[in-house]
Structures are given as structure tokens and as C-alpha cells.
């Protein structure tokens, strides 16, 4: 009989942040599309309301990002451990994970990475999230904040190359984040069952078939 364990992988603050972020980013993407193409997209009502919605969602996502950052850095103190790839990750882990996703997964092999609360992400996830959470998200938030304060921040905007460059930069960063969404959503279905990872982000618990003996995996419960 295989021993089924449940690992508490996603603490409550992280789950709240994740779903707030998900809802916010989808709102931003749709409202942003309507702001850019008002003659083609009218999903969210009038132009004025969609601008207010976009600005509000932007501030909510930027503030929730700040909370997320401070939670991981100062409360959980696991930001570097979780999100920064280690030397081994870069030397062998990244290649191993790429090999799994693009070859051995199709042959029916197991995922070489087994998530634990202190090592949630595989090397590919770490690299992707590092780029998204430490480059794309801060930049798209900052450019958005600049654009909602054009008159008071005009000097800084000119230093950055002008409003046109700022706006295009914001647009392309947003496109990169939107491009990540389908990949992100698709990868969540690659668990043992298509809903496994999605349930984890809702309940916090993930099923694990491994013997849990490592003290870092505190917070696990055993089920039979």
C-alpha cells in the first residue's frame, strides 16, 4: 500500500494573495484591452468606468504585490530560498526539468521535482517566477503608477524617455504577463490529476506519495 501524505504547501496569506492577484490581473488585461481598443472592445462598460476599474485593479495588484513581498521576506523569511535558483538548479536542475516537461513527461515518467513547503518550485518555476515577480510585476506596476500621475511626475517621465515610451513599455510588459497566463494555467493541470494543483492553491494541501521524514516538511499530515 502506498502511503498518501498531504503536504501543507500554500499558507493562507499566499493563497489569498494568489487569487486576489489572479482576479486583478485578468481584470487588468481585459480593461487594458478595452482602454487600448475602445472602438472594438466594450465589455466592461463606458470608457471612464473602465479606466477607473483598470486604475483600481492596478493599485490593488500593486499593493497586494507589496504585501506578498514583505510576507515572504520578513514573515516567512523564505523568499530567497523559494524564488532564487541555486547553483545546482542552474547546473543540472533546470535541464532535468526541461527534459521532463518536453520529453520524459510524454513517456510517462514521474516529475523529478517533489514540492515541499521549503522547496515549492522546480528550477523552471523558480526561473520563471524570478523573472515575473522580480522584473515584470514591479516594472508593470511602476509604469502604471507613473501613468496615473503624468502631470506631477512629468520630469521623471521625460527622464525615462517620455510618455510614449513609458506607455509602450507598460503595454509590452503587460503582453508578457498575459502571455504567461495560458502557460501558467496549463501547467497547473500537469499534476497527477488535472485539478490537483488548482485544489492545492484553494485548500493549501497537496497530495504526496513520498515518505515524509525531512524536518523541513513540518506541517504535514498522514492519511491512509
Amino acid at each position: 500500500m502506498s502511503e498518501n501524505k498531504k503536504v501543507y504547501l500554500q499558507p493562507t496569506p499566499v493563497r489569498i494573495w494568489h487569487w486576489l492577484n489572479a482576479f486583478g490581473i485578468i481584470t487588468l488585461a481585459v480593461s487594458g484591452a478595452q482602454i487600448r481598443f475602445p472602438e472594438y472592445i466594450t465589455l466592461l462598460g463606458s470608457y471612464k468606468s473602465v479606466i477607473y476599474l483598470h486604475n483600481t485593479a492596478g493599485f490593488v495588484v500593486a499593493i497586494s504585490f507589496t504585501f506578498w513581498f514583505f510576507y515572504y521576506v520578513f514573515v516567512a523569511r523564505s523568499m530567497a530560498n523559494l524564488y532564487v535558483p541555486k547553483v545546482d538548479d542552474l547546473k543540472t536542475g533546470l535541464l532535468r526539468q526541461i527534459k521532463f516537461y518536453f520529453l520524459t513527461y510524454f513517456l510517462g515518467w514521474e516529475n523529478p521535482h517533489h514540492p515541499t513547503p521549503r522547496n515549492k518550485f522546480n528550477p523552471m518555476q523558480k526561473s520563471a517566477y524570478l523573472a515575473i515577480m522580480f522584473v515584470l510585476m514591479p516594472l508593470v506596476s511602476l509604469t502604471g503608477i507613473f501613468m496615473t500621475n503624468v502631470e506631477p511626475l512629468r520630469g521623471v517621465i521625460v527622464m525615462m524617455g517620455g510618455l510614449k515610451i513609458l506607455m509602450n513599455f507598460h503595454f509590452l510588459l503587460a503582453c508578457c504577463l498575459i502571455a504567461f497566463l495560458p502557460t501558467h494555467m496549463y501547467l497547473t493541470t500537469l499534476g497527477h490529476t488535472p485539478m490537483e494543483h488548482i485544489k492545492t492553491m484553494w485548500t493549501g494541501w497537496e497530495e504526496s506519495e513520498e515518505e515524509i521524514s525531512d524536518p523541513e516538511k513540518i506541517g504535514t499530515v498522514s492519511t491512509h
Partner: protein
Amino acid sequence: MNSSYKNNLLGMTLCSLLLLTPCSLPAMGADDCLMCHGDADMVSGSLLIEATTFDTTAHALLGCSTCHQSIGDDHPGGDSELSRATCLDCHDSLGQEYMMTDHANYATCGDCHNPHEVRAMDAMAGYDMNDKCFQCHEAPTMVDLHKEWLPQANLHIAKLPCITCHTGSEGYEIVLNIAAKQDDGFLSRYELPDYQTLQDISGEAGVLSLIDSDGDNFITLKELKRFNRNPEYRDLRLAGTMVPSDVSHDLSTLDNRYDCTFCHVSGPESLQTSFLAIPIRDGGYQRVPVEQGAVLDALYGTPDFYMVGTTRSASMNIIGLIIICGGLMMPLGHGLLRFLTRKNRQH
């Protein structure tokens, strides 16, 4: 009010006033009047008239005695009560329109329009139209009031004449101006330069030659783009604003101005009629017609002009689409292989 209609009206007014003018009036010309009224050593206050400015007004064409009929040969002696025509004598329909507004309870025509300085709408740059409004309605207060419903209220108030929205004129047009960097500093603001500044830059060819390279008094979109890209003019750039196409003194707000997509929309129907306002020697502006078309695309060439929903770049749209399609490749490609190899994972 289009210019031909305005010229006709002016002509008719002038003729009728001349016919009604009693033959006994002296043949004193404006130059005679300005010998004293243009000299600060001789008169002061409201009697002092800035001759250069007055000469550029439509009222100068009428001459002083058309409005001040009581002036006789013995002026300035013996005529302590100077007669004045009222604005409504000529501007009857505009006056009636104005009288219906709340503004009429607080300000007379002369409170906003000094008859010795007032210029026609097409002799103004656009931004300067707000100078009169700000005499009573302070800009910060107006920003706070508009902020209650208008996104980017401070930008709208800084960049648009109030009468673009608070008007009875359904039509509108774009007025382009040449803005110049104020100093060598990197963060220097761009302001509208006077005639002499632009004349110094353009030299003998004249101010208009900065943009109108073929000298046909007509600006094409290509000429605007060429001006934007000309490295010689890196301290100059185009600035644009929207003004009503007809003169109106109904200062209520047109309903469609509350709809942001009245302006913030792209396409062939919107924002197509434009003029270039060039400063002229005596202080006013001369409007030069610009080719019909998406003139804001030319403004898009300036680094700090961007109008959401209107001046989006087609090439950026394509790059953005490629990025988003790239994001779809992984789920589509991987998902297909996953489906085809699903039997390998049935254990």
C-alpha cells in the same frame, strides 16, 4: 462659425455701421487716436491702448470712431462723456446666447474680452483660450472639481481649452502648435515660443517653412512627420489641442463630452480636421490648414504625447500580439503531444 461666414458678417457690420455713421463725424483715424491713447506718458488705465495688439484685432478694422461716435474735433476737450457702442450692437446672437447662461449674472462681455485686445478664435493658439477662464476659475479648484468624475483631470485641464467641452459647438478641430524647449536642461519644459524666437530659428525662409517645406501654405501629414524627425529641430516639437470649430457662448457642457470615447477613439471618423497655428509678428496666430487625416499619428512622433485609445502604435500592437501568441504555443503544442501520448501515463 467658419471664417467666410465671419468675414461676411464683419463686412456687413462694417458697412451698416458706416452707413449709419453721421456725416458730421470727424475724419479722425485710429492712428490719430493712438498718438495719445498709445502713449503711456499721456494717458493711463483703461484709456491706454496697446497699439500693436489693437492693430491685430478685428475691431481695428472698424476704426475708433465707429464705436466711440461722440468724439468730436474738440476731443479731448468738452466731451467728458465718451460714447461707447455696446457689444450687442454687433454681436447680437452671441450676446443673446450668453445672456441665457449663468455666467451673465457674474461677468459682462468686457470682463472677459477687452475690445481693444480681443482676437478671433482662429487667431489664438488654443491653450491661451483658458487665460480668461482662469481669471475667475482658478486652475487647482477646477482640477479638484473635475477630479470627481474625470480621470486625469489635471492633464485635461492643462492641455485643453475649457470651451472644448463647455460649448454649444458640436464640431471641433485640432490645433497644432510648435512648442520649444525652454532651456538646455534635460527636464526643461516645452512652451509655445513667440514669433521672434521661431523667426530666429527659421531665418529668412520664415516661421512656416519650419514645417511647410514646399511653401504651398498647406501642411501635409508627411511634412508634420518630417518636422518631428528632423534632428535640427530637436528642441522643437509639435503640441496639439482640441478647440470648438464654431464660436459659441453657450457655456453649458455638451452631453457627448462626458463620453470619453468622443475623443479617446481611433479611426477615420475622429480627430481628422486640423490646423497649424503659427505665431505672427504682431502677437496673434495665423492658422494654416493641415491635410485631413489622422494628424495625431504625427503628434505620436513626439516623445511625451500619448492619448490613450487614440494614438496607439500599430507596430507595438503587432509585437504585443506576437508575444501573447507565443504564450499560447506552450499549452497548444504541449497539450497536443500530451493528448497523443496519454496512454503512456495510464499507470
